[in-house]
């Protein structure tokens, strides 16, 4: 569908992405190979698959599947589609489920409504997200979790930190030895 290089007709906006088309914090996918660009004036209804990175500055409805590559939704990008890719970077608007086999990044201008599955997830301050995130940190992080919970140290607490005092406690349920999530 995005075999643009064979198309002899001039297309409105299919070219190597420029850094100015994306946010200052977003790196260009060109660094890891070629990338197709869906420009701000382009609207696509349908499924997208392929073998190169993709930058979306326009509107896309359907499904996007680039298993081995990176999808970037730029600030002007508006996607109403499920996205599957190795790395997914979002600075625009996305409505749909997102599966990043390596990483998902929502930049500060990003607005995402959907469910995310990714081993690594980054959300920048200011980004808007509604939905669920499935995370699995792997063995290394589990080892960290297994360590005892750090107790608050009175001396280390700054004046600005609100300190609670107990007013009620001691429900018998609290003494039950069960785990929150089974097992």
């Amino acid at each position, binding site marked *: 569908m995005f075999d643009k290089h064979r198309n002899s007709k001039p297309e409105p906006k299919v070219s190597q992405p420029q850094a100015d088309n994306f946010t200052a914090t977003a790196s260009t996918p060109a660094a890891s190979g070629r990338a197709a660009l869906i420009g701000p004036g382009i609207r696509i209804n349908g499924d997208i698959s392929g073998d190169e990175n993709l930058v979306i500055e326009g509107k896309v409805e359907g499904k996007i599947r680039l298993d081995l590559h990176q999808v970037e939704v730029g600030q002007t990008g508006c996607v109403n589609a499920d996205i599957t890719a190795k790395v997914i970077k979002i600075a625009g608007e996305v409505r749909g489920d997102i599966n990043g086999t390596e990483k998902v*990044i929502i930049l500060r201008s990003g607005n995402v409504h959907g*469910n995310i599955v990714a*081993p*690594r*997830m*980054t*959300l*920048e*301050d200011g*980004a*808007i*997200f*509604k*939905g*669920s*995130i*499935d*995370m*699995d*940190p792997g063995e290394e*992080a*589990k080892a*960290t*979790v*297994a360590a005892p*919970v*750090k*107790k*608050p140290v009175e001396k*280390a*607490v*700054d*004046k*600005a*930190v*609100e*300190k*609670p*005092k*107990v*007013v*009620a*406690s*001691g*429900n018998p*349920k*609290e003494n039950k030895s*069960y*785990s*929150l*999530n*089974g*097992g």
Partner: protein
Amino acid sequence: MNSLNTGTAGVGFTPAQPPLSRTQQTLLFPTLVKKINPDRRLSVLEIGPALPETIAFFSQYKCRLHFAAMYTDPVLKMQSEEYSEAELAEEITRSLDFKTGTRFDMCLFWDFLNYLDDKALRAFNKAIKPYLHKTTRAHAFTVRTLSTSFSNQQYGIEQAHMFSIRPRQGKQARTTPHTQAILVNLLSNFDIDQGMLLPDGRLEVLMTASL
């Protein structure tokens, strides 16, 4: 200690932005964290918006983290209109948009329950019931006396014993603080296990599902 690195969150995240929030110590939340079995998937409902520090905190667990973003939901405006409890419950269910079969191990209500009037809180109680199990635990802020007010702020988890508090953008919705006694009547799916009085009059509570 009163500032946070809140720029970016995630496993292996990049250097942080300038601090934007203050922190609040919690003695109750660590008791929930201690109950997490790291070998099993944890299912968490965060009733507020997605914040970098909350994602960073839970990224150490194998978990599904659901951000409901209810503070900006239209249901907060609907409650003051002529909608029945059943209609509100239906709207809340639609807005929560949980997948069938979802059961939460931990619910983070923060002070959201105080933005619901009695009718809306009963509707919320009804809407959330199918997504609880008998050992679901919840964290919330309520009040000791009705004169306590809630600031327009949002919460995140910096560490097990430390919440982040950020000012919320936009106009604050009308609040309807509930005392502990009223809360347990309206939110009948939960019993309050423990409470901590905070210096500003809020009461931090841990609850367990009473299904």
